[in-house]
């Protein structure tokens, strides 16, 4: 949700490509990248491509959706764990009744919000249930 183009634009790459930050001091990874490490405070960070698959640890089906995006209600938000790095993000391509914790999910790029008075449309990573699980298809390549 943004009414400002620069606010969204400057953070677009990590949001399109699931790029996190690894702290060169303490080694911990977080997403999306911040100005300094939330764990140790160091600003010595390097970009790191996160794997695109993770596990759904929690979720909520949201009906009280803010602003213009109310038209898209309900929106599903999840807490996804990718090799120990947790991300709050929306889920897509799934119905509320198909959700359960422990579900394997994968990252895709989708529209996040649209603000009618400014016309700004934002995009970013959402997660969907892994397609063709067990078939080898959609295997994590580490590529954006």
């Amino acid at each position: 949700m943004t009414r400002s183009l620069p606010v969204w634009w400057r953070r677009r790459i990590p949001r399109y490509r699931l790029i996190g930050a690894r702290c060169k001091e303490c080694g911990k990874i977080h997403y999306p990248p911040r100005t300094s490490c939330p764990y140790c405070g160091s600003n010595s960070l390097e970009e790191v491509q996160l794997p695109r698959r993770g596990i759904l640890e929690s979720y909520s089906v949201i009906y009280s959706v803010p602003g213009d995006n109310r038209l898209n209600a309900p929106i599903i938000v999840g807490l996804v764990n990718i090799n120990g790095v947790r991300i709050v993000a929306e889920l897509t391509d799934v119905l509320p009744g198909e959700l359960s914790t422990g579900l394997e999910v994968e990252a895709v790029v989708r529209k996040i919000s649209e603000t009618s008075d400014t016309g700004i449309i934002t995009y970013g990573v959402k997660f969907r249930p892994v397609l063709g699980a067990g078939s080898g298809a959609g295997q994590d390549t580490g590529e954006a």
Partner: protein
Amino acid sequence: MNDSMVKVYITGTGAVKIARHYPLGVRDLAFQAGKQALAESGSDNVDFVIVASSLSYLQAPQLDLASYIASSLGLHGVRALSVEAGESSGLAALETAVSLIKSQEASRVLLIGVDKMTEHPSGPTYVMLQALYDTESDAYYNIGHAGIAALLMRLYMEKYEVDRLTLAYWPAMMHMHAKNNPHAMLPFAVAPEKVMTAMPIAEPITLLDAYPLGDGAAAIVLENGDELEGRPLAEIESVISATGMPSPALREDPLDLESLRTALGRLGGLEKIDVIELHDSFSIYGLLELETLGLAEKGESAKLVAEGYFSAEGEGPLVNPSGGLKARGHPIGATDVYKLVEVSRILAGTWQGVKRGDEETGMIVSINAAGSSSRIALLRKVKG
């Protein structure tokens, strides 16, 4: 934390009933609460006006709010300061006021908390409330005002195997308490089964788990104990704060309210507390606070609440006699000041709502969002 020997007392309280105050603006509400507090303190003479408000900057919108409110109260030339710390704005303003008095920069401070949440329809208001959370991470998505609390609630239910009905006893207790609070927005009883089956707003959170959108203002007068003009209602023993992770996703355990844990550590432990006003924008936060404060084992707080342990007849400390954010209401920047009014009145023996009658120590807790910051204030009854 402060070596100053200056004691700080509350000598005046004021509170407007929380409601949808369509005819009244931010300044009108602040005026009513401020005048009540000044009248109880016996004097209009203050050298600082501090205003706690969060949404005013988005709802009205108005900047330099404290100066405009001071002027509308007729306090021309007074020093004025606005304090914003999201849902914890009220205790942040208290921290500021107490340090001004302890450092003898001020001797009488009028602290007003005010917010209107109904100047816009709920859709735009949810956009504003979403900004209480980290807009650079979680709140980039359409999490609304309840999404993060909902994620934590489900984690809690699964981790500790607590069922939905047990979690519905918190709102039920809040509504029971609010029935006797003269300024509560929702002063009616609600059965736990109704909470569980109410309309979902962010599953597993239902409408009856969530705080209502209401307008409100509350005020207190704070004075230096060496230069008292009014009758002291309660002493502010301490007020402390800490910041925390910007998102619960960054915590080793997302259910760990580490900012509150850090603030508690700074207090150096707790003595026996008789009455507590917790921050329960959503039930899960109230329960996690009980566990962080050591008043319940992890995963056990909801069961204790359901058994009545924290009610007026219970064995534990009395929790949220006001009805909490859930049922008293939660006009964001004003909420902590309501808690200060309520706990002072309980300690002074002038409270009309739920109480036990022998309370000597009170605690107020507030957090912003899921714990980006937390604050604790300790209040003490004035003897004699």
